[in-house]
């Protein structure tokens, strides 16, 4: 599914009808633009309830001292692996 939309004054862009219908997009939903390359962005449409979306995206994360240590260990071991290659 491809579609082209024009950038209007104040940089407003309308979501194509085909995408609105397919994703059941509602006014107030969030569109997150993630850079893929210099010319490309991935537009991710998420529901309007940000706190619920955050709960979904960050499910299963506990903030114990052990979890913090594990995250830090993961960070530095990943960096070390990259440096070796």
């Amino acid at each position, binding site marked *: 599914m491809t579609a082209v939309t024009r950038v209007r004054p104040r940089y407003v862009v309308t979501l194509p009808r085909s995408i609105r219908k397919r994703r059941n997009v509602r006014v107030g939903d969030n569109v*997150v633009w*993630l850079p893929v390359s210099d010319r490309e962005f991935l537009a991710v449409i998420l529901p309007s309830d*940000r*706190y*619920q979306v*955050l709960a979904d995206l960050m499910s299963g994360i506990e903030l114990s001292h052990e*979890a*913090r240590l594990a995250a830090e260990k993961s960070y530095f071991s990943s960096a070390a692996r990259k440096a070796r290659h």
Partner: protein
Amino acid sequence: MPVVESEFLLALRVDDRKHKAALATFDKYPTLEVCTAAFLETAWLLRSKGKTPTEVSLALSLLKSELESRDVAEIPVTASQIGRAHDILTRHSMTFFDALILANAEESQDRRLISSDSSFDSTGTVERIPLK
């Protein structure tokens, strides 16, 4: 203005047990700051639990957007704070991310940090306000 850390970012999840406390904090403190290191730690908490880079990017983007809508300023980590964090690590038991957050809070205007983690008390350099 008080500084918030990773605990606060995670508490923005609707099902987090401290979610109501986080929302109350927005009301209680009209101006808050967040250290970049809090985003860094949150990202690695997510990655260490198997979340994909895209999921991490989405979560951080939404967190940043929500904080901006609440006028919470992101305070970048400075070179001097990195040095101070290493100094903290030689004397106290905490993670590097937490040392960065603490070093950042030490340089904030009123040296107050909103956190339930008592390890931030070890230096005695900031006033810790529990998130509750």
